[in-house]
């Protein structure tokens, strides 16, 4: 066992695994004020790690995902830290922070408390490297596709309306981010509740938003609703494209009695080996329970809306809604911005318009 109630010994507490042939190399790590503390029969690990990585590949690196596995935490104790929207040239280094707390019973076996592995890295040309245990290839590809879409949007604004037009667009984005209503959501899996405590439920149907040109469309769907709780969403989708689809994800919105709409969750395909040929239908279903609240009070779900948020084809390419579709359906006011839009608007907020214009010119 590790020495407890003191600073962590990085060599023993954390193991960092990068494959030998990885195009991203681990350079160094600092542990800062990390500590392990015994608390009764439990061990509390407070880890604040800053690591430096290097792009040793031949192409510009645009995103990376690290998998963090905590020893002996129930249900796998799995987490990840992803950094999309990077633009790291060959040979350049970049920092990444991992801050986590782990509480677990104190009777653990020896070995590292936390293991950090490379799960995937995406390059500018959409080439990917990594074991992909957390579907990092799809996620990084979706984020990169959205990044290209939103950078193009800002560049178009700059070209059409000049720097002031770009400023207006970024200010509008920042205003939307500030006003975005957020729900507190708890996801519970394998839940059991006494019959007396179970609230009365009913089945509610989804209303769907459909985008012109979307390769997959929702056909029908429902979920069990009980006050501020929703269970077991099921949505049937049809492949309208000419290509085989291997992954579909729906976004799920809920409305409260005042008509305020919130992003509740995403409903991914439950089957990791989805195979949806052109013209065929498939069902997305999840056997989990979600509890929605706002400011500590459960919200009463009045209406549910769904739309296809992204699709991955058998060849690995992805589809995401375009800006026009999001604006036409007013979803842009409800949905969070893409990671790239968030990064660019934050850059404007911290460094101003000139820095944003310079950044856009790099792409």
């Amino acid at each position, binding site marked *: 066992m590790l020495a407890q109630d003191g600073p962590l010994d990085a060599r023993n507490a954390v193991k960092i695994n990068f494959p030998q042939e990885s195009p991203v190399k681990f350079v160094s790590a600092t542990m800062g004020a990390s500590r392990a503390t015994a608390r009764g029969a*439990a061990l509390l690990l407070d880890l*604040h790690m800053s690591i430096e990585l290097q792009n040793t590949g031949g192409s510009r690196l645009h995103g990376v995902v690290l998998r963090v596995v*905590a020893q*002996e*935490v*129930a*249900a*796998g*104790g*799995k*987490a*990840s*830290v*992803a*950094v*999309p*929207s*990077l633009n790291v040239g060959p040979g350049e280094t*970049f*920092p*990444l*922070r991992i*801050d*986590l*707390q*782990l*509480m*677990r*019973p104190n009777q653990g076996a020896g070995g590292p408390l936390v293991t950090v592995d490379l799960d995937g890295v995406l390059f500018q040309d959409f080439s990917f490297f990594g074991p992909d245990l*957390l579907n990092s290839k799809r996620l990084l590809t979706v984020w990169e596709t959205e990044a290209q879409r939103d950078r193009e949007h800002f560049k178009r604004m700059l070209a059409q309306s000049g720097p002031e037009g770009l400023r207006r667009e970024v200010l509008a984005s920042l205003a939307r981010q*500030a006003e975005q209503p*957020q729900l*507190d*959501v*708890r*996801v*519970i*899996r*394998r*839940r*059991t*509740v006494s019959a007396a*405590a179970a609230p009365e439920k009913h089945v509610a149907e989804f209303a769907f938003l459909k985008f012109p040109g979307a390769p997959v469309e929702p056909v029908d769907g429902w979920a069990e609703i009980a006050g501020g709780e929703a269970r077991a*969403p099921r949505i049937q989708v049809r492949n309208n494209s000419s290509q085989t689809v291997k992954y579909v994800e729906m976004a799920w919105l809920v409305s409260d009695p005042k008509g305020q709409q919130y*992003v*509740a*969750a*995403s*409903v*991914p395909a*439950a089957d990791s080996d989805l195979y949806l040929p052109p013209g065929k239908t498939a069902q997305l279903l*999840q056997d989990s329970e*979600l509890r929605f609240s706002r400011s*500590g009070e459960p919200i009463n779900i009045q209406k549910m809306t769904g739309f296809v948020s992204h699709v991955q084809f058998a060849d690995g390419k992805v589809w995401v809604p375009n800006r026009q579709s999001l604006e036409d359906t007013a979803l842009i006011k409800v949905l*969070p911005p893409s*990671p790239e839009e*968030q*990064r660019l608007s*934050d850059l404007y907020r*911290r460094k101003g318009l000139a820095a944003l214009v310079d950044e856009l010119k790099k792409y």
Partner: protein
Amino acid sequence: MKHPTQATLALHAGGDLGPVARWRTERHIARCERCREEFAAFAEMRDIAADLGEIPEVPWSRLAAEMKANIRLGLAAGECVRTEEKPLRHSIFSGARALVAVASVVALVVTGVVLERPNPVPPSIDGVVVQATKDGIQVRQGVSTLRVLHTGVKDKDVMYSVGAQGSMRARYVDPETGNVTITNVYAE
């Protein structure tokens, strides 16, 4: 300028003021930085208290039983080391002794009531819970918890999203690196 009392600010942080008092307090803290900071501190304290409520269930009954067993053990040990039996001149339930005895019984009863008080218990959850906390996102089952933190980032600057399959994601711009960082925890 007359400042609201600490009690008023604390009540306001908990949303417990009446409409008029709330309006007056809001109007004051909008102009007074000192009171605004105190109000924020009270609000933060409420968040911490809420987190404390999420500490895994403590086996109070077992703890109480252990305490009682320890008291009995102490009494038995006292009997063992007593050298001789001193005759009692008066009844053992008289004067200061009686007072101490009664006080001890009362303390024991009060402790028992406090430890076993019927708190409102939320519906029992037997499974993996994924949720956001005030400084991160976590996956929890029983006493085991893995929490990924977004240190140094204001909660209003973090975007949370949930996967119905049992995952949660927090997205923010890291103030140190300037990079968008996305953390995820998974129930499975």
